[in-house]
């Protein structure tokens, strides 16, 4: 039972060491496989064909929609016309492009990374003791925001922007987009994204650097400083993740709006990071790292956080769905109607309800599940898959108004490739220093932690 | 060191009894409220003493007056009018002109002030009930008022509760009869339930409550709509 504070960290294998090379190699193979696969399959699936010209559509909308009628009104009055020319009337529906699965993948890894940043910040805000042994891993993951910024760059070039975001080249007759044109403006969008990544990078690298420096000098004032800055950090994080969610995901449908959207992305983000954390710990321990420092008790707490955020995600998702469903206002429900318009998207929604809430809810309830490495691994892999499915659900139904289920093999190969790159980033971020915040003043407390 | 415990061992037995007693009392209270406060108990059987001992059994049952002779508006208005004194005087000018029982009627006729009849079947103000809507669609007087034609003194027979109204509104068939038989309170007493239902279904078809194949129409759902009775 009790292991007391008797673990001597110096006897612990606590650097990545040779694993770093293995990790980079594996990441490179995965990335290469993803790249080649994407290219080959993309070629087969026609992903790189000339994208349907935007100008064609806008010209069509010029000709066909009455400039005096607001588009939403037009939808109301002419459901049949809407059915037939949906791409004309909706100012927010796009055609499939390779950038859609790319965006899904970017958002998936970005949310996981931001979850890590939140983990670090929030554990400083609350002066948490139990988590000190795993905080370094979170710090390492959070540094990948820089990598995510690099991966995001192709999307924010004009070509992909035009294919993803209808507001990039709105129909002149689209009055709703015209209202918010000052916000949904390309330059301003780039500035905002720059700010978000700047905030995240400064926070992630700053906390990581201070923490690693403490390994050397053991200065407890570093902990005080990190702790006292963290409330402001959380504030900046909350605002930046909210608006990043609006910019990257909500504005895919530039007509649609939901005040809870930022919280929704946040919930999935923290949830999926805890899953990744559990996976990383299991993998590190399987390779003989930190085998005694991180105990079943810590795993149980990580599992508890997964459980808590599973419920929190369901709560936020239900709040959003319920309020839109009940009020039944067309410009709001269109977002969900689009996601229920074919049986495949309907199935996907149910898969999220059951797979992202009920299954993990029941699965993670038992403490034994949370403490056993095999079961927590299954749970964590499942949660990550569900986070991807969630991002897929946010992005892909925008294509052709949800009338088709646009699954292609590149959806998978892009994620695999990006995972390879992400793993390389992780290896670079985690190597060269200890995997555990060695001289953190709360380390004894964390090592002795018992989950009552 | 000993102390005197404030409770004795036998009190634990009492505690169990008290627990059981509380459960029984709770159930009893619920049942009392449910049955005791039901209109079946509180309202059915209501028989106020009227200023004039008017006998429906005599006038309707024996003499064969039609309901509509006195309650003239019943087919055309929401309210089934209580007859004015003149209606009574039509006959009682000649019949029993000196009876003391009829003093209030004659006084009323002289003074012009109405007889203070006491309303027996009184619905709450938030209920909209239309006599004509029922009578002209084949709901007989007897369905709500019972055998008025046999009553010496009028009293409430049915509970007139919302659940009771709904019983018919949900399943009207067996409560319908040909419109011309509405005021014949003793008509069709020997019909079996199947006959009643068959006859009722034909009438409902005529009213458009069910379609030719016997399936309910939208009109039928209106019978249980809140705003049908609460306007």
């Amino acid at each position: 039972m009790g292991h007391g504070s008797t673990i001597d960290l110096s006897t612990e294998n606590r650097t990545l060491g040779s694993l770093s090379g293995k990790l980079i190699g594996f990441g490179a193979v995965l990335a290469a496989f993803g790249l080649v696969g994407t290219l080959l399959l993309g070629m087969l699936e026609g992903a790189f064909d000339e994208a349907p010209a935007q100008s064609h559509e806008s010209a069509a909308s010029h000709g066909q929609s009455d400039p005096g009628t607001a588009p939403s009104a037009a939808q109301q009055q002419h459901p049949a016309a809407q059915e037939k020319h949906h791409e004309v009337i909706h100012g927010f529906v796009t055609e499939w492009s390779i950038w859609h699965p790319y965006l899904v993948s970017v958002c998936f890894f970005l949310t996981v990374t931001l979850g890590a940043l939140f983990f670090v910040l929030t554990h400083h805000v609350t002066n948490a003791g139990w988590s000190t042994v795993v905080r370094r891993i979170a710090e390492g993951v959070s540094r990948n925001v820089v990598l995510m910024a690099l991966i995001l760059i192709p999307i924010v070039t004009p070509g992909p922007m035009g294919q993803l975001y209808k507001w990039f080249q709105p129909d002149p007759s689209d009055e709703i987009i015209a209202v918010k044109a000052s916000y949904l403006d390309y330059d301003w969008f780039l500035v905002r994204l720059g700010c978000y990544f700047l905030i995240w990078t400064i926070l992630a690298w700053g906390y990581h650097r201070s923490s690693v420096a403490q390994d050397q000098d053991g200065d407890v004032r570093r902990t005080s400083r990190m702790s006292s800055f963290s409330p402001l950090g959380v504030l900046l994080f909350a605002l930046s993740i909210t608006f990043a969610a609006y910019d990257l995901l909500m504005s895919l449908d530039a007509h649609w709006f939901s005040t809870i959207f930022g919280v929704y992305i946040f919930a999935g983000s923290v949830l999926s990071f805890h899953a990744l954390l559990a996976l990383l710990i299991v993998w590190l321990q399987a390779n003989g790292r930190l085998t005694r420092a991180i105990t079943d008790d810590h795993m149980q707490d990580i599992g508890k956080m997964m459980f808590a955020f599973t419920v929190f995600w369901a709560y936020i998702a239900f709040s959003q769905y319920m309020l839109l469903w009940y009020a039944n206002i067309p410009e709001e429900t269109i977002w969900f109607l689009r996601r229920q318009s074919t049986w495949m998207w309907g199935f996907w929604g149910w898969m999220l309800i059951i797979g992202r809430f009920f299954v993990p809810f029941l699965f993670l309830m038992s403490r034994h599940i949370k403490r056993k490495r095999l079961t927590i691994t299954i749970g964590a892999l499942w949660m990550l898959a569900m986070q991807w499915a969630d991002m897929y659900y946010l992005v892909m139904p925008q294509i052709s108004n949800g009338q088709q289920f646009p699954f292609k093999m590149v959806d998978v190969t892009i994620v695999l490739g990006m995972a390879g790159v992400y793993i390389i980033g992780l290896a670079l971020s985690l190597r060269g220093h200890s995997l555990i915040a060695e001289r953190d003043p709360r380390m004894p407390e964390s090592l002795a932690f018992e989950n009552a | 060191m000993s102390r005197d415990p404030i409770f004795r061992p036998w009190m634990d037995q009492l505690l169990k009894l008290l627990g059981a007693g509380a459960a029984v009392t709770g159930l009893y209270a619920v049942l009392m409220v449910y049955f005791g406060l039901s209109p079946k108990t509180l309202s059915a059987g209501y028989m106020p003493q009227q200023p004039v001992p008017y006998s429906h059994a005599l006038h309707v049952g024996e003499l064969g007056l039609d309901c509509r002779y006195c309650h003239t508006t019943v087919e055309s208005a929401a309210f089934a009018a209580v007859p004015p004194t003149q209606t009574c005087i039509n006959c009682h000018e000649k019949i029993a002109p000196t009876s003391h029982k009829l003093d209030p009627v004659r006084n009323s006729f002289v003074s012009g002030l109405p007889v203070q009849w006491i309303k027996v079947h009184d619905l709450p103000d938030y209920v909209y009930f239309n006599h004509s809507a029922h009578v002209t669609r084949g709901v007989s007087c007897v369905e709500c008022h019972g055998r008025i034609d046999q009553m010496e003194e009028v009293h409430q027979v049915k509970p007139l509760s919302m659940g009771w109204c709904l019983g018919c509104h949900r399943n009207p068939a067996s409560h319908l009869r040909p419109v011309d038989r509405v005021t014949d309170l003793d008509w069709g007493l020997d019909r079996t339930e199947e006959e009643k239902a068959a006859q009722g279904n034909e009438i409902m078809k005529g009213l458009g409550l069910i379609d030719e194949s016997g399936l309910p129409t939208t009109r039928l759902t209106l019978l249980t709509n809140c705003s049908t009775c609460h306007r």
Partner: protein
Amino acid sequence: MKELLDKLGPILRPEFTGNAESPEIDNTAYSPDNRTPLLTGSDDNTTISDKVCQIVEQKPTIGWWMFFLLSFSVLGLLGVFVPFLIFWGVGTWGVNNPVGWGYAIVNFVFWIGIGHAGTLISAILFLFRQKWRTSINRAAEAMTIFAVICAGLFPGIHVGRAWFAYWMFPIPNQMELWPNFRSPLLWDVFAVGTYFTVSLMFWYMGMMPDLATLRDRAKHPLRKVVYGILAMGWTGSHRHWHVYERAYLLLAALATPLVLSVHSVVSFDFAVSQVAGWHSTIFPPYFVAGAIFSGFAMVMTLLVPARQFFGLKDVITLKHLENMNKIIMLTGMIVGYSYAQEFFIAWYSGVNVEKFAFINRAFGQYAWAYWIMVSCNVLSPQIFWFKKMRTSLVVMFIVSILVNIGMWFERFVIVVTSLANDYTPSAWDYYTPKLTDVAIMLGSFGLFFTLFALFCRFMPFVAMTELRGVLAAATHSTSTAPDDTSGKPAAGS
């Protein structure tokens, strides 16, 4: 009131027997490598019992009588105006045609919100192993119960025919009619009813061992009987503790989603509608954060004077208060975040009525109420960025009062502005409360404080049992443990 108490202190306060009145010790110093003790002073199991029980065992002081009688006389307003309302009907309220929801719903939401801190402290902080909850959870839970009682008053009377309140429940009846389960108002009935029941069970269960302490210390036969019945025969049996602890943990795990759900359901009352300014998807978490915010403020308002009055300064220490201030600040910022999101999305949506609703809030007829709300809820807690302010009793007391005011106005702003200026400009009207509105609101405060005064007087104000556990954990590392099986490490206390 605090200054008054300070002046009159010696006359009004209880005389402390055994251990003298606790001194004010600043234990808020932050040091990463050494967690400062939660409890100042040198209490052990014996003195903890003495300290907490003497509040109940002593004769009531003049100060308590003054507080009680003042609250009770304000409660009298309810006794007058509720019958008046039932007799004359809701026409005696200030509600008018567009503003059909007035003070009744504002007060309902306000009190339900107040009732969220107790269960948060007892359940969520319990799950998060925040041991500082132990000194304050009992009083906060009691406050929750009383606040929910005050809240429950309003749905009961607001329909006018109070004797038909039972129609809210799915009871078989002669109407053969069931409640409409698709209505958020009915969800409220279930949410608030469940919340009250579960909070009551949670509170009572936590009190059982402490009631047993009172029973075993009681001298007066009446006290022996009453506490004997209430303690249910608790003997501190470990076989009982074993089940009890599991039950407490499970109740905490159940109460946590419950506390989130209750104010979410209250927010549904507004947010499922199509009224501009009400229909916003962030309402559920936003309402929950606001509820916790206001609840903590009310706990602060009650505890800052109470710890002085009852000599509990080394049990409810500055560190407890500082932690609560941090939560007030955090939830205040979540509320501020939600205000900001609503404004941004109202503009971003491009929907004219939405835009109007929010501009109207800030600059329309009710701008005064809006800016009271913003300055009290968003600006005033910002002072807690400074540690000196977080640990100043005067500042935190004032801020807690301001937050209470601000959160009341938040509900007022939401309810009234959106209704007063709705989709039909020709119907717009200004809402002015009438005497009955104000009197019933004040009366509900009287009810709340009366119940709280009675609680202080007759129930264990602090969870002695849990404090003993904290003391045991804190002292354990120094004592020589006989074997490995004993206890948790000192960490975290």
